[in-house]
């Protein structure tokens, strides 16, 4: 008998009588203004939130901060070299990456992105700074609504991203920029 069969046989023998799954529909009924809550929470976890009217404001932001630097994006209306063909390692040295989120979660200030938004999986981690565009109408209250939206999305890789990379491993002092992006700016449109 293989280890697999041995393990499964023993688990089957030792597991208690089957118990029903609980009802999740009673959860996630908290009510608050999702946009305000999202913005407050995102700032509290180290992100910067900027409300914008049109795309040119993002362009202006990038020009003022990353002129002459390596800026990449997965957005169709954004001019950047074709970096999707580069190897993941070659993306080291990206100064700013701009992507668009599918939706945001108010209760924890996170955004959901998956393969199709990322271009390359490593991109939002290896970049020094990250910018995310989020449509205000796509902010939902809690994680329960989040998984309803995700449903059975056929992604290879999906990610809830909440704020910049951080650590408090040295005497509980919070430091932004552990291994992933040092900063996160969310453009609310």
């Amino acid at each position, binding site marked *: 008998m293989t280890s697999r069969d041995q393990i499964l046989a023993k688990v089957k023998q030792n597991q208690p009588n089957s118990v029903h799954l609980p009802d999740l529909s009673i959860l996630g009924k908290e009510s608050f203004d999702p946009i305000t809550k999202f913005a407050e929470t995102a700032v509290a976890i180290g992100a910067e939130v900027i409300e914008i009217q049109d795309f040119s404001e993002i362009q202006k932001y990038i020009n003022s901060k990353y002129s002459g630097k390596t800026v990449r994006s997965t957005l169709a209306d954004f001019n950047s070299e074709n970096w999707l063909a580069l190897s993941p390692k070659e993306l080291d040295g990206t100064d700013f990456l701009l992507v668009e989120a599918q939706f945001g979660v108010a209760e*924890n200030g996170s955004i959901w992105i998956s393969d199709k938004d990322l271009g390359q999986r490593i991109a939002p981690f290896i970049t020094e700074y990250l910018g995310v565009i989020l449509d205000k109408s796509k902010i939902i209250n809690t994680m329960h609504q989040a998984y309803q939206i995700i449903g059975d999305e056929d992604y*290879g890789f999906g990610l809830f991203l909440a704020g910049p990379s951080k650590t408090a491993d040295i005497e*509980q002092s919070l430091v932004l920029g552990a*291994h*992933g992006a040092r900063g996160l700016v969310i453009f609310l449109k």
Partner: protein
Amino acid sequence: MTTHSKSAEIFNRDFERTTWHDETLYFVRQKRDKAAFQIDDWELLRETASQIKFNVLSNLSEYLIQFEENALKNGIKVHWAADAREHNEIVFNIVSEYFEGNIPHDTFKGIVKSKSMLTEECHMNEYLISKGIEVVDTDLGERIVQLAGERPSHIVLPCIHWKKEEIGELFHKHLGTEKGNKDPKYLTEAARQHLRDKFLNRKVALTGVNFAVAVTGEFVVCTNEGNADMGTHLSDLHIASMGMEKIIPQRQHLSVFLRLLARSATGQPITTYSSHFRKPRDGQQMHVVIVDNGRSTQLGREDFRNSLKCIRCGACFNTCPVYRRSGGHSYHTAIAGPIGSILSPNLDMKANADLPFASTLCGSCSNVCPVKIDIHQQLYKWRQVLVKEGHTSATKTLMMKGMSKVLASPAVFKFSGKVGRMLMDKMPFMVNNSLNLWYKQREMPEPPKESFREWYKKNRK
């Protein structure tokens, strides 16, 4: 082997440090409270999480088969390990096969690892290093203890027992940082640069698994630093080690656990990254190693099976008065604290017989547990099992037997009380000595003039 109480005694010799350790952890506990109190449905979430986990335990074999089937469809290779040794051999064989038996002796030979308490439980690092494979821990706290030749003292905060001055010194020695610089920002930046080089130059990444979803065959890894993702997305080969109790039925159940995990662990509303791995990247290999290592045995112990609900948030550590004042290494196991003390006797009753006694049974652990494990009750039950199986010291057994004789007979009880009060009063040296464990680090109280029984007889009207 040194027992918990002996190691704790050594830890407590440095009074200031013990107090600092205690306060730092309680600070994290308070952050947890603040986060939890902001959620109106917190108790409902805990109850729901507990029920989901109980459903998982009661259908575990079916869910495991379902997960395997769906993971395979997604292009993930699935392996099964009965114990720690088999886990380590499987990991070695995957790496070895990937390099076609010739593990290259250059900078590519090592693997980058993000946090996985399971690989600690299996002593995987030591095993792989003995086979010539370098393992680089990439979580900052884990890298610190690794450079120091230690093991994590806490499952979420691996170097919570280290002071920044000491980390500055350690980094000066190993990473060439400025001598005397203890600024957390500066030291974190140094680690970022040091580990970025490893991420870019290693072909193999190993991660743990926080949750694995049966119906989609995907697994979720949570980090704040982004080290798991930096490792896996840059690697050609991703190995994920998973304790078999990490299964949950459906994607929607992640909502409950992701709401609870980080709030319970550090007081954050969610970890920075909650990464859902469902299919390997083009050109990448992805493997999951499902590990039993005693879990199926624990599943069969009715009194203790609830311990398998654990999601490794560490809340029970941060609230435990014994953990906070004895330090993680006193527990001499990969998983310390209250939860470790009910998991470890299952793995080796004799070696870990001291751990269920490293508790005041105050119950704070059970009250903060996000999946409502009855931790303190299990600690109490383990004590009974350990005594019955003869794993407690002869002195303790003798004392307990004597005590039960005294308490069983009113006459003996009355007489012993009298003798006790007389001794404390007339011959204090008989009790104020090192043979009396209650005299350790404290003064004995003034003996009362009379017993309650005597007082009652006199005052009864």
